[in-house]
């Protein structure tokens, strides 16, 4: 595959969206282009978007699955607002995505699928290829399916298998267009189809045919290059939030020297964490697919009682079911990590779409006064460090911790500068070994004066036999107590010990140091908020950004930070849950800005909103 003799243009960034049927392999195709771009050294950010249905009826709008990748020669914060290129594998994919495209965008269409029947399925009265409705775009009609089948003629694969390789044809064409290194894709195909050499050959041939088509056809007169980004030295890999979170839990297990026990029930979009962790048993990790969400957290709590790092992973509906057990963990004062990969609710809602609407549930969604720690990752790779931080708090303070990821960071990906294991925090803990009371008595609720944590006395330890439970406990002894003063003391103590958790101060990014407006976010909105702030500053509009990782307890300096600005704006993918907390706790007239569409904010949306606040107050 030579570079060819076509004109080469330099770009600083490109956003490409692949869209097709759920069974067309769009996620995989996007993933490969991402990997190729990462290999080249671009900064990248991705956004998969797919239906909950595994295979909705072919060619229909509900069945459209897409994957967007943004790559650039500088550091980027989001997967991009609008695609420069759309690859549409069928009319449904075109119809579902066309409204996101700016004028002049490239559209590559698989003409084989633009049949009368398929057009009719999605309500196209006329073929958009012919009726002038795409005149504002640079349309490239390509007979993707038939050219793929033709290219594989003689390789001995079935027509069905040949047709299925059309995504590799598309990938080959895009790889040529954007001068991507493709060796990693060829290696990937060898791994993926290791047991089917015929499919390795077929998919490689399809990729090559796509590449060659780009090189030879006159329809593509320009080839583009996007140079490597200037990134911090080190070794990188591309990682999704769910992968990073799972790896962070492995790291927490290694760095605490505790066996990890995961209890989980399959649920979108959290199941990939269970899948990933179940592959790493060599680290002493036990994964249990429980009979339900309640059993999953119960088993994790039982393992924590026995001295393990107990973890349960789920999404919002699962957290609702786990509530009673989380309250028990609060009463027992045992370490437990609960991962909530948030999705759009209420009820089943939109399982594959994102939202940040479980914050209230995480903070308050239990019976009684039941405080715990809550933290949220800000990007896919940050999920790794957030998981370690969740484990640190749980183990140090013997408390349940809710880690609020969401579908956007969980399935999105970005380059990750790999840390050295030896430089990660040391999470070592000491189990109780000897009685701590007078006359050799063991007091299970005698607290560490600094952390207010009670001793972790695990079964098997001679002399520390004791009973714990959900009934109110007397201070120090842990005996059942209905004493009014004791209950008041214990409720206040449980609250104080969460408030007393040491968390880092929130940092403020205010490069001009003259901003009047602070935009405060939490969790996955970090990317779009950051991109919007950058854009405003480039236009000479000062704005400050602060982003919360710790939602409970809040950083000690937050009140001071909020008071330093005339205006505080809080964008959230919910109806203003953090804004309520901030207004109630700090008496700050924070302005909520809310989007509940199941999609992440675009940088443009936030830029326009923030511009208005900055200019008009």
């Amino acid at each position, binding site marked *: 595959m030579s570079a060819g003799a076509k004109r080469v243009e330099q770009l600083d960034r490109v956003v490409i969206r692949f869209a097709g049927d759920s069974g067309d392999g769009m996620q995989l195709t996007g993933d490969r282009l991402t990997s190729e771009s*990462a*290999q080249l*050294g671009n900064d990248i950010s991705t956004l998969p978007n797919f239906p909950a249905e595994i295979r909705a009826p072919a060619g229909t709008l509900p069945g459209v699955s897409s994957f967007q990748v943004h790559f650039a020669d500088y550091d980027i914060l989001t997967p991009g607002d609008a695609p420069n290129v759309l690859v549409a594998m069928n009319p449904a994919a075109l119809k579902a995505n066309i409204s996101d495209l700016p004028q002049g965008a490239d559209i590559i269409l698989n003409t084989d699928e633009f049949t009368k029947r398929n057009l009719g399925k999605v309500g196209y009265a006329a073929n958009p290829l012919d009726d002038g409705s795409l005149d504002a775009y640079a349309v490239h009609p390509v007979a993707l399916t038939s050219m793929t089948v033709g290219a594989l003629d003689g390789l001995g694969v079935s027509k069905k298998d040949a047709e299925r390789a059309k995504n590799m044809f598309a990938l080959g064409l895009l790889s040529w267009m954007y001068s991507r290194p493709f060796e990693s894709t060829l290696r*990937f195909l060898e791994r993926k189809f290791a047991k089917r050499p015929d499919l390795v050959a077929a998919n490689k041939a399809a990729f090559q045919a796509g590449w060659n088509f780009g090189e030879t056809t006159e329809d593509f007169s320009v080839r583009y290059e996007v140079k*490597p980004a200037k*990134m911090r*030295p*080190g*070794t*990188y*890999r*591309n*990682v999704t939030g769910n992968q990073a979170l799972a*790896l962070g839990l*492995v*790291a927490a297990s*290694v760095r605490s020297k505790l066996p990890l*026990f995961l209890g989980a029930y399959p649920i979108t979009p959290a199941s990939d964490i269970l899948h990933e962790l179940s592959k*790493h*048993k*060599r*680290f*002493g990790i*036990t994964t*249990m697919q429980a*009979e339900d969400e*309640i*059993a999953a957290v*119960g*088993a994790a*709590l*039982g*393992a924590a*009682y*026995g*001295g*393990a790092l107990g973890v349960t992973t789920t999404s919002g509906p699962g957290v609702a079911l786990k509530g*009673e*057990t989380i309250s*028990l963990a609060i009463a*027992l004062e045992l370490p437990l990590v609960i991962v909530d990969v948030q999705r759009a609710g209420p009820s089943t809602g939109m399982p594959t779409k994102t939202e940040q609407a479980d914050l209230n549930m995480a903070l308050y969604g239990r019976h009684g006064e039941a405080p715990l720690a809550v933290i949220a990752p800000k990007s896919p790779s940050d999920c790794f460090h957030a998981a370690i931080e969740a484990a640190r708090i749980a183990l140090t303070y013997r408390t349940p911790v809710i880690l609020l990821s969401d579908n956007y960071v969980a399935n999105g990906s970005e380059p990750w500068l*790999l*840390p*050295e*294991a030896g430089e990660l925090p040391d999470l070592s803990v000491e189990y109780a070994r000897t009685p701590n009371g007078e006359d050799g008595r063991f007091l299970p609720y005698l607290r560490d004066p600094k952390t207010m944590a009670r001793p972790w006395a695990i*079964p*098997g*330890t*001679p*002399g*520390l*036999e*004791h*009973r*714990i*439970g*959900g*009934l109110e406990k007397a201070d120090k002894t842990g*005996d*059942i107590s209905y004493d009014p003063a004791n209950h008041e003391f214990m409720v206040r103590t449980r609250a104080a010990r969460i408030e007393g958790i040491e968390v880092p101060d929130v940092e403020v990014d205010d490069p001009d140091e003259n901003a009047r407006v602070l935009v405060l976010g939490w969790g996955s909105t970090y990317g779009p908020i950051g991109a919007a702030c950058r854009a405003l500053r480039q236009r000479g509009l000062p704005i400050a950004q602060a982003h919360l990782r710790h939602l409970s307890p809040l950083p000690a300096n937050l009140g001071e930070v909020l008071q330093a600005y005339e205006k505080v704006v809080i964008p959230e993918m919910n109806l203003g849950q953090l804004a309520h907390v901030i207004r109630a706790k700090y008496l700050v007239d924070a302005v909520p800005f809310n989007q509940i569409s199941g999609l992440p904010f675009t940088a443009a949306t936030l830029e326009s909103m923030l511009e208005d606040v900055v200019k008009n107050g």
Partner: protein
Amino acid sequence: MASPTVELKLTAKDFKSDQEVRWCPGCGDYAILAAVQGFMPELGIPRENIVFISGIGCSSRFPYYMNTYGMHSIHGRAPAIATGLSASRPDLSVWVVTGDGDALSIGGNHLIHALRRNVNLKILLFNNRIYGLTKGQYSPTSELGKITKSTPAGSADSPFNPLSLALGAEATFVARTIDSDRKHLQSVLRAAADHKGSAFVEIYQNCNIFNDNAFEMIKDASSRDDHLIRLEQGQPIKFGAEGQFSVVHPEGAFGLRVQEGGDALIHDATVDDPAYAFALSRLSGSDLNTTPIGVFRNVQRPTYDEILQKQLVDAKAEGTGTPDEMLDGLLNTADTWTIL
């Protein structure tokens, strides 16, 4: 994995905690507690390696009174919590104490799945056929038509037969005993403790406040002989004051029958097919008219705990280097690139 046994000179007293027992005077739970505390020393297991986990209900106060490790958890969830503990700590002897409401109503799902998985748990279900702690509502084992505070016109739902349910989940050890028969109770507990895997023991327990004398027919000396069937491994299943009744398997019938005289079936709890033990469990219903007690089923199959442990051991054998080195290796298993 068997718990380590050592030479220990423990007595029943060693298993009594310093907590005041707070059941109603006359409650059957006292007898069960005394029987358990009295039998524990026989196991030769150090107290620190024994854990009692319970849910909610009168019976679930049990762990507070045992001088072992214990957790009084939440309603119905004890089997799930105990599964996590047992699966991660195969060195422990883990006991679940539960009741008819706790195990069969709110916690039914966890019970059947613990049994299906054959987790190495000893599950003691105190069945008094009533809700005691909430003061007298009918339970999932109350007889149809039971008149209680919540069912003044009589309950409309048929009860579970707990043993049939456990056998439907293919529990590997299933037994029934009675609170007041200490010798029998302890013999069943002994067999349960010896069993590798889930052991399910239903204990008929009298609630003298809300459902007094529920099991009197099989307890009272004047009536019990004609209604109580004592299952003994390898012995013919006969009962009656003169041994005049036999349990037989009529030709062509699905289940077992009671008849006067005839060739009694020889009891064998080790029959692999759960249908036999299930047929035994169907001999008694709400009326207790012909009620077998003893070990119904006692078979071996791999436990959940040992399968998980084997997977861990096999996987760990593949790991090389220090944990940090292994972690570095894991983080680097992907298409990586280096920026200088």
